């Protein structure tokens, strides 16, 4: 029987209230959103907060909207809401690709986008996807608000830059012309964490790759990013040879470890192959609007 250790519990009435409670109890308090990352970790004693601050009543943190040239996603937005959002589908198909393979439909009903990012599991799909789209994360404390690149959010396995008295409140995604994106994941069974996964966003201009973001999950990529492969592609034409070469570079620069999901050399193979495949789909989507979906 798995149950969390003894813990105190309080409901936040507002973001300010949540931050006040965090400040009072830091560093022994944790924000409780959907709980689908935190509660399993508490059962296993990988997390053992003394106080939980429940933000599920803060419905003003559940939203997806287009503000200027940014899509803004509230931290408490459920995975299911991200998956069914037409706005996300139009601008960032990569997030729909990823959400379709995150856990299962029931878990997605209650698990939150912000909670997944803050758990900071090295295999977390959305961490790689938001790195690929070059998102920005908004972190609030009582002293003020700061923005951090999704690529600088994670400081290590299960660690982020969010301070003990701060909370993630919003994810911002830049909407730029000429973009296309995709995500692919290999898992052992439905709903499982990835053996390896890759996401890409490509922005074309004048027939060349003006900018590109490549995110990798579960293969030991620093900050979930294949930076060397991005650097290689920038300014080059999206030819098959170039996309394959980017896959080679991504595979060479990540550091997968062997575990029960697979040996390191197989994960490296996945990094190579999945990087090339998501780049191909992302490029096709810049041209065709919808493009072909991941197979």
């Amino acid at each position: 029987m798995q149950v969390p250790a003894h813990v105190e519990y309080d409901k936040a009435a507002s973001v300010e209230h949540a931050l006040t409670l965090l400040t009072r109890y830091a560093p022994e308090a944790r924000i409780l959103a959907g709980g689908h990352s935190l509660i399993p970790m508490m059962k296993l004693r990988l997390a053992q907060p003394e106080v939980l601050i429940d933000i599920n009543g803060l419905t003003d943190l559940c939203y997806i909207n287009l503000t200027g040239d940014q899509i803004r996603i509230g931290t408490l937005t459920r995975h299911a809401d991200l998956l069914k959002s037409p706005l996300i589908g139009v601008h960032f198909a990569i997030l729909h690709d990823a959400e379709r393979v995150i856990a299962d439909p029931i878990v997605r009903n209650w698990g939150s986008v912000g909670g997944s990012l803050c758990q900071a599991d090295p295999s977390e799909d959305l961490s790689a996807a938001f790195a690929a789209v070059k998102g920005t994360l908004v972190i609030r404390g009582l002293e003020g608000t700061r923005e951090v690149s999704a690529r600088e959010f994670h400081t290590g396995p299960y660690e982020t830059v969010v301070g003990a008295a701060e909370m993630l409140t919003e994810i911002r995604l830049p909407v730029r012309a000429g973009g296309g994106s995709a995500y692919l994941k290999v898992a052992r069974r439905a709903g499982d964490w990835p053996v390896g996964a890759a996401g890409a966003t490509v922005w074309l201009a004048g027939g060349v790759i003006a900018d590109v973001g490549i995110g990798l999950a579960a293969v030991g990529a620093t900050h979930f990013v294949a930076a060397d492969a991005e650097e290689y592609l920038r300014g080059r034409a999206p030819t098959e040879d170039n996309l394959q070469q980017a896959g080679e570079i991504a595979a060479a620069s990540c550091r997968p470890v062997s575990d029960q999901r697979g040996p390191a050399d197989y994960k490296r193979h996945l990094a190579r192959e999945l990087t090339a495949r998501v780049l191909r789909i992302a490029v096709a989507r810049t041209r065709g609007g919808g493009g072909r979906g991941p197979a």
Partner: protein
Amino acid sequence: MMRLTVTVNGTEYSREVEPRLLLIHFLRDDLGLTGSHWGCDTSNCGACVVWLDETPVKSCTVLAVMAAGRRIRTVEALATGGNLDPVQRAFARCHGLQCGFCTPGMMLTARWLLDHNPNPTEAEVREAISGQICRCTGYENIVRSVLWAARNSGDQ
């Protein structure tokens, strides 16, 4: 301990609970509603699925106190007015269960699916139940049951 007030199957309950108490244990041990099953404990198997307000959730991964002021629906409230829900009749008719352990969660997910998508394809049914494990049926008869319920939801 803290006071938890929650509406389960239309009835308001108020109990003293520990904050760490999981919703599945609250339903089974505190309220005696043992229709919801306690399975894998790791949000994988889906035997513990109940509705939290209007949404199916895995109640082994929700604290009971998180349901304060909300509505819970369990398998005990699928039948209404002495009539089995079409989903329940379908599982009986199409042999949608063998041991029955996964059945309450399967039926609650099926009810939610049909409320939102009255005529699902077989693929949509399989997707809807993809977070729930059955070790007996190979899923064939469960899928058949949900599709039968979709076709026969009108007649009682």
